[in-house]
């Protein structure tokens, strides 16, 4: 195994998320053999690799949807082993899904309200009795929902059903849902796949706005110009193991990466 490029030395930020020697086996199938990397506070790290490399599996492990066979994931000093997805979300680590994932039969506005679930705590009794505190909190939630819709830029769709939105806007709604939880780290699974260049451009601007808040971002994406343009560091996976890690300029020219993407023949060509 090629040693990962020692780019971690260039890292000055405190570590937010560390994936420590994680392995995932499905029966005899090894989805991830040994994954080890860190993401600094406020950093934007991209996880790339050919289809089937184990990127989404890595996401599932980090966010508690899957239990690693070996190794552990630590976020801000808390080991995530054994935590359920909603408990991982509670720690501020929130994901979006690869396929469009919104609440289809609810309006866009309701979708965001569902995402805001953890923001304001209103008791069951206060809700049933419609106490002033609960009415106030509900009004506050609605205010926050508008803020998020405006940030993402889909406020004009508020009263439409989530499932009726065009594809690109459904992806934005997925991000809005994740943002609604007020994450300190955001894991985006192929957010711009299926978007046209204009939409991708808008999305990159949205990412910049999210980063201004100090949010850490881990991105899985196939759109290489975008990845290389916005990432602080890139981590490359192939066949369930890490083959390269470093700033975009370094990773782009790594022979192992080129071989993984272009195939064995490219070397001799």
């Amino acid at each position, binding site marked *: 195994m090629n040693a990962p490029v020692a780019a971690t030395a260039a890292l000055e930020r405190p570590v937010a998320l560390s994936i420590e020697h994680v392995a995932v086996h499905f029966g005899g199938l090894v989805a991830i053999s040994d994954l080890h990397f860190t993401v600094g506070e406020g950093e934007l790290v991209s996880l790339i690799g050919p289809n089937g490399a184990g990127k989404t599996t890595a996401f599932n492990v980090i966010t508690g949807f899957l239990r690693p066979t070996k190794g552990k994931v630590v976020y801000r000093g808390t080991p995530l082993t054994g935590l359920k997805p*909603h408990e991982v979300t509670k720690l501020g680590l929130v*994901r979006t899904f690869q396929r469009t*994932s919104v609440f289809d039969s*609810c309006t866009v506005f309701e979708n965001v309200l569902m995402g805001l*679930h953890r923001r304001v705590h209103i008791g069951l009794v206060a809700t*049933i009795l419609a106490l002033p505190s609960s009415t106030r909190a509900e009004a506050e939630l609605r205010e926050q929902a508008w803020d998020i819709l405006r940030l993402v830029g889909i406020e004009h769709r508020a009263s439409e059903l989530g499932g009726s939105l065009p594809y690109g806007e459904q992806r934005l709604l997925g991000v809005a849902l*994740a943002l609604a939880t007020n994450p300190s780290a955001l894991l985006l699974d192929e957010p711009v796949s299926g978007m046209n260049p204009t939409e991708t451009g808008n999305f990159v601007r949205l990412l910049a706005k999210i980063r201004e808040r100090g949010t850490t971002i881990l991105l899985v994406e196939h759109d290489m110009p975008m990845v290389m343009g916005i990432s602080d560091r890139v981590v490359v996976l192939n066949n369930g193991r890490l083959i390269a890690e470093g700033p975009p300029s370094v990773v782009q020219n790594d022979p192992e990466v080129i071989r993984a993407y272009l195939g064995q023949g490219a070397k001799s060509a």
Partner: protein
Amino acid sequence: MTRLTPIIVLLFFASVPWWLTDQYLLHTLITTGIFILAAMSLNLLLGYTGQLSLGHVAFFGIGAYTSALTALGFDVELFGLFRVVHEPWPPVLGLLFGTLVAALCGFVIGKLSFRVRGAYFVIVTISFAEVTRLVSLNWVELTQGPLALPGIPPLTIGFPGLGYMTLWEKTENYYVVLAFIVLAYILIKRLVNSRFGRAMIALKGNESLATSVGIDVTRYLVIAAIVSAGMAGCAGALYAHYIQIIDPMIFMFLNTVTMVIMVITGGKGTLAGPLVGGLIFGLAPVVLRSYVGPEIQWILYGLLMIVVVFVLPQGIVPAIEQWFNRTKAEPLREPSVAGKGERA
């Protein structure tokens, strides 16, 4: 639908005892109302969280027996070791305990079965209903088994200082049931339009997305089960004090089926669904009985149900809403904060 619709409907039903002279029909309205209350509770689980409880009658029956036994008193020997003697208490306390005990059962069943959902929940609830039926049938010392519990006192309502009223008359019972339906309607409306309801609708719509935005799915399913079971128990208690006699037949599977029919035909996941479905399928047997023979009556009942489900698979209320929206041709609404997220 306008905001006024519920108030107009309520005023209409409040006026019924003034002009309805047929006491039997009034009696049918009361029992239908009690079943509507149970159907509303089932709708909270089935319509909003998507979990089908096919043993909902268990909570209804537990509420009925708990309330009846609280009001009648009992004297049982437990495990041949010690006696538990309970002196009769006021029926209102029975209603309260019936609700609480049923809610507690909802909590236990929810905790036990929501780790594995879907079909397993259906099986657990059916089994639970069967177990409660067998207990009521065989624990003769407590429930008198098939001999039934007769002489359950009617409810006495009132406030200290304002005087009390015992509900002997049908009209009084009718208004009490109506009041409970209004209360339940308001409770469910507030619940489903809050973060609790949104969590329930979210987990029904897309469970992995719901957990990933931080919703503890099991917790909200259990909350729904507690509220739903408590409400069904309350309906059962009202039934016991109105009919004044209950036997293990109360746990009949047919009673659950009736509730499910009321919810599905009316429109699950809508506030008005169980009310509409409940009225139609609660009154249908009585109305049909006056025109056709008993065999034809149930065939027509079945046909009516099949037609509704075939023609309006979403239920009557959603169909009316769609039709209403189409004919009205609502102009594009400017997104405003008010009115968003309201579920009719």
